[in-house]
């Protein structure tokens, strides 16, 4: 295993693509995953994220482009010669082997005879010491998942690939395993590339998230950056929830001078910092302005005067409210948008804020972002069928 001697290195995908007949699963894609990072490929099913992962593992042949690892081109290598290991969706543990032999499988294939010590260490890392001689079918889903992680990690791969590793677990266990995987990654310092459709999972675990849609990367960045500064409506809607309002640019503003863009929408004016709008802005043109539901405050229409000047405001009527403990979620109908979402912390609840009440939505202009109006407003909105 000469590749294993290479002192680490980045995973570099250059112009990599995959087509099946006439269907393009992954469009030519350039991506660099820095060594030691926890990298997430996030997207809905069919966006090409798993295919990308499988091309790195060597389980799928790339139609075009190259995969390199620490400067070595590994595009032509079969999976068993690549210094990467995969944690498969639904784990793919060998049913005829016990936990110890499952974990030792990779070591034995590389001719290592005395596996006991290493397997013991791995079992400890994933906290499965008492289950060494169980068969996979005697384990719970969470335990199987940890065996799958141990089976891959024991080989000290340069990169660990995780294909929706938590998809089969229930919510509570998933939360727990997210933290555990993060802990393991910090402990072993191996590059993790994690494929998931769960935006919360990607944001909690990864240092860098690449949001994929339709076979291409829509946006790449740190979770907070993606959340606060989405560059497309898909990212704005897929990561959390966004209220998008279409309007006409009244004043284009200038990035350097610090003057704001002013947009006329829903009978009012919304201001946003020119620096937070990646789209080209021309006076008189259309623009989508967005704001996250938790950034908005609600005031009853009677108290509209008490709102501080300089805040963006939109008037509307509450059509629905749901109490979920830490916050209350309101749906507001307004000339600016049919169903604006507002999340209010349950600190001082105004009892007048019930469905039917006339309200003013107001927020700090600094929390407003702008997007090109030329794209579909509902891209990336999760429908009920998608979530199922």
């Amino acid at each position, binding site marked *: 295993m000469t590749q294993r001697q290479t002192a680490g290195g980045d995973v570099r995908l250059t112009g990599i693509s995959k087509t099946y007949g006439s269907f393009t699963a992954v469009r030519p894609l350039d991506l660099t995953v820095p060594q030691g990072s926890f990298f997430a490929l996030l997207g809905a099913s069919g966006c090409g994220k798993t295919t990308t992962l499988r091309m790195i*593992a*060597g*389980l799928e042949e790339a139609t075009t482009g190259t995969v390199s690892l620490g400067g070595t081109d590994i595009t032509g290598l*079969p*999976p*068993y*010669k690549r210094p*990467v*290991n*995969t944690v*498969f969706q*639904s784990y*793919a*543990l*060998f*049913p*005829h082997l016990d936990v110890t032999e499952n974990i030792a*499988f*990779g070591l034995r*294939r*590389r001719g290592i005879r005395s596996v006991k010590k290493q397997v013991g260490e791995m079992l400890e890392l994933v906290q499965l010491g008492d289950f060494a001689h169980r*068969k996979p*079918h005697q384990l719970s889903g969470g335990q199987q998942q940890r065996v799958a992680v141990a*089976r*891959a990690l024991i*080989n000290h791969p340069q990169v660990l690939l995780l294909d929706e590793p938590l998809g089969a677990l229930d919510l509570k266990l998933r939360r727990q395993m997210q933290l555990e995987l993060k802990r393991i990654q910090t402990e072993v310092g191996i590059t993790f590339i994690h494929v998931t459709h769960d935006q919360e999972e990607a944001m909690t675990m990864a240092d860098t998230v690449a949001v994929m849609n339709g076979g291409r990367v829509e946006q790449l960045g740190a979770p907070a950056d993606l959340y606060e500064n989405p560059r497309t409506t898909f990212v704005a809607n897929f990561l959390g929830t966004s209220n998008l309002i279409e309007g006409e640019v009244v004043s284009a503003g200038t990035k350097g001078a610090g003057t704001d863009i002013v947009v006329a929408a829903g009978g009012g004016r919304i201001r946003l910092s020119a620096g937070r709008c990646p789209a080209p802005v021309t006076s008189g043109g259309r623009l989508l302005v967005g704001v996250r539901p938790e950034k908005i405050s609600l005031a009853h229409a009677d108290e509209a005067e008490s709102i501080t000047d300089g805040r963006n405001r939109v008037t509307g009527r509450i059509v629905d409210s749901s109490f979920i403990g830490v916050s209350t979620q309101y749906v507001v109908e307004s000339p600016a948008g049919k169903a604006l979402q507002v999340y209010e912390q349950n600190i001082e609840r105004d009892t007048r804020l019930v469905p039917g009440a006339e309200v003013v939505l107001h927020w700090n202009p600094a929390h407003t972002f702008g997007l090109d109006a030329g794209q579909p407003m509902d891209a990336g909105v999760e429908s009920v069928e998608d979530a199922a």
Partner: protein
Amino acid sequence: MSVTDAPPAPDTGPEVRRPSTRRRLVPYWLLLPGILWLLVFFALPMVYQASTSVQTGSLEKGFEVTWHFRTYWDALADYYPQFIRSLLYAGSATLLCLLLGYPLAYLIAFRAGRWRGLVLVLVIAPFFTSFLIRTLAWKTILADGGAVVDVLDALHVLDVTSRLGWTENNRVLATPLAVVCGLTYNFLPFMILPLYTSLERIDGRLHEAAGDLYATPATTFRKVTFPLSMPGVVSGTLLTFIPASGDYVNAELLGSTDTKMVGSVIQSQFLRVLDYPTAAALSFILMAVVLLVVTVYIRRSGTEDLV
């Protein structure tokens, strides 16, 4: 309305209980035809044959139960070559079936794609013709001066097989090779189908996982595919070996007096010599031997440990 329509509670009690008793008996009623069938066509003949095997007498004077267990010893002493031959031929045929059937079953399970159904039908297709006719066809195929024999002779294959004692004087018909070929051909589907079933159940991702964990395709087969297909291997070999060791049609039609299997002996003892006790004793010995071989085999292959 809801009050007047509600049925009085006590009335429903017995009505609910009655179907539940009946329901408890349903499984037994469903089992009855099968149990009767086994009783009439399996248990009773077994008892009858067991009693026949310890009878003495002749056709003219009639047979009588005399607990003459010596018949077993005599039968074994007279016919042990046929027993050994049966096990040897059946074993060879089973091995050949496994060697021929495994690649085919593997191909159908993992590579056939949309042709899978068609290939499976082709595997079963020979069953549309009678067993006897198919075996007779092999008589023509392996006949002296036929294409198969000529080609094998030209390639000097028959020189080698004749030296090994599988064929004689460069002819195939009426030799052990012909009998084993016939057995292999006739029982091949019984090997392929269970093999296919257990291979088809293997999750393809296990192959990927093995490859991902540094196993070459050959090692993947040795360490993952083959162990997981063991249930199919075991049931396939049993389904081939057990009937093949009792078979007499192939030995009769394709063999000679030197290739007689124990099935032929039992048949002729019953139908030609009319020595019923010996025939019955031979049947029980065969049953015991096969049971022993199978038990040892299942123990050794350790299938109870497989998922």
